[in-house]
């Protein structure tokens, strides 16, 4: 078990529920980043463990294990997918100058789960400048269930973000989030280490819930994105339904959207 101080707060969890990702800048020390980059360059961590291996059994004795054994990273993992998650797959992305943007896509297949979800880490072991074309991601797209690159027609979405930042930065995402790897316009090689994990327990109240009933903690749940347009209320209803699951509170409905439409009185007037 991670100590409470390393777990996500309710506010961070609410932000994840609403936007579909969290970002932690310069979390991993630079010397470990450098050792990992060497392993990526040499192809040493290309080999995958079988999907479904307990995560704590993979990469023993390697720098990449140290990254995911970092106490804060352990706390993040535990908050989102619980203790002893299952390893799904990893991939060290190396992007040289030139090439093309990936199409915007959601990874893998349709994932129709309403509550349970997988997480994906994007770990950047080296600085990424804007011209290196870091990962593009579309906040608030994790409830929009689409099939891989069928959304490739969308080049620009209002509110999309692209990663640039310092070595050691980690993004953790809901695996349904839309994203793409961008063309690298610089002379530097871009590195991004990706890891997908599956939960093995109900993803409910796994974070540090000390601030669960603090109104400010829940404020991120109210946000929506400019690209949601007229459908932003449907988005907020999806956020509320997700939070009902995460907080194990089926009555959670601060804006009354669900309560209103689920009201079919059975009582007869007397």
């Amino acid at each position, binding site marked *: 078990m991670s100590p409470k101080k390393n777990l996500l707060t309710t506010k961070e969890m609410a932000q994840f529920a609403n936007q579909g990702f969290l970002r932690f800048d310069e979390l991993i020390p630079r010397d470990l980043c450098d050792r990992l980059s060497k392993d990526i360059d040499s192809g040493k961590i290309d080999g995958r463990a079988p999907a479904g291996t307990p995560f704590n059994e993979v990469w023993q004795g390697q720098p990449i294990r140290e990254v995911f054994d970092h106490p804060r990273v352990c706390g993040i993992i535990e908050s989102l997918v619980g203790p002893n998650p299952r390893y799904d797959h990893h991939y060290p992305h190396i992007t040289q100058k030139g090439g093309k*943007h990936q199409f*915007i896509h959601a990874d893998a297949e349709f994932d129709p789960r309403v509550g349970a979800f997988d997480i994906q880490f994007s770990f950047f072991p080296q600085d990424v400048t804007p011209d290196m074309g870091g990962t*593009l991601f579309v906040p608030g797209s994790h*409830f*929009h*269930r*689409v099939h891989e690159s*069928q*959304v490739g*027609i*969308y*080049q*620009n*979405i*209002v509110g*999309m*973000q*692209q990663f640039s930042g310092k070595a050691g930065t980690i993004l953790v995402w809901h695996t349904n989030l839309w994203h*793409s790897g*961008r063309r690298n316009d610089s002379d530097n090689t871009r590195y991004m280490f990706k890891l997908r994990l599956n939960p093995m327990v109900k993803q409910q109240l796994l974070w540090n819930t000390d601030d669960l009933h603090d109104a400010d903690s829940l404020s991120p749940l109210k946000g929506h994105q*400019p*690209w*949601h*347009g*007229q*459908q932003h209320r*449907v*988005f907020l*209803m*999806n956020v509320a*339904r997700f939070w009902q699951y995460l907080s194990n509170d089926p009555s959670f409905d601060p804006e009354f959207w669900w309560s209103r439409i689920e009201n079919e009185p059975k009582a007869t007037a007397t």
Partner: protein
Amino acid sequence: MPQNQQLLYLFTGNSSPESNIVAWSLYDGVTGKPQKGCQEAGTEPPYESVLAAMHDGWRTIQVPVLEPARPGQEFDLDYLKFQFVLEKWETCDES
């Protein structure tokens, strides 16, 4: 002089051509290359509405069709709902 097609996809906040742009894509048959600002966060939409694009000479060749939500799927989200496709024909060099 030959003319090549340019296609502008505009995705809007609701079904009206006067509503705001939430996403866009440009396929330029003149240059044959990706538009400037393609997949660059922070790039502004080229127009504030479909109507503004029409005013600038774009011809609308596809408008979104409204479809009722299927029972039980009223709150499901998937693709961007309102897609307009516009075109221009531009002269290009014969070289």
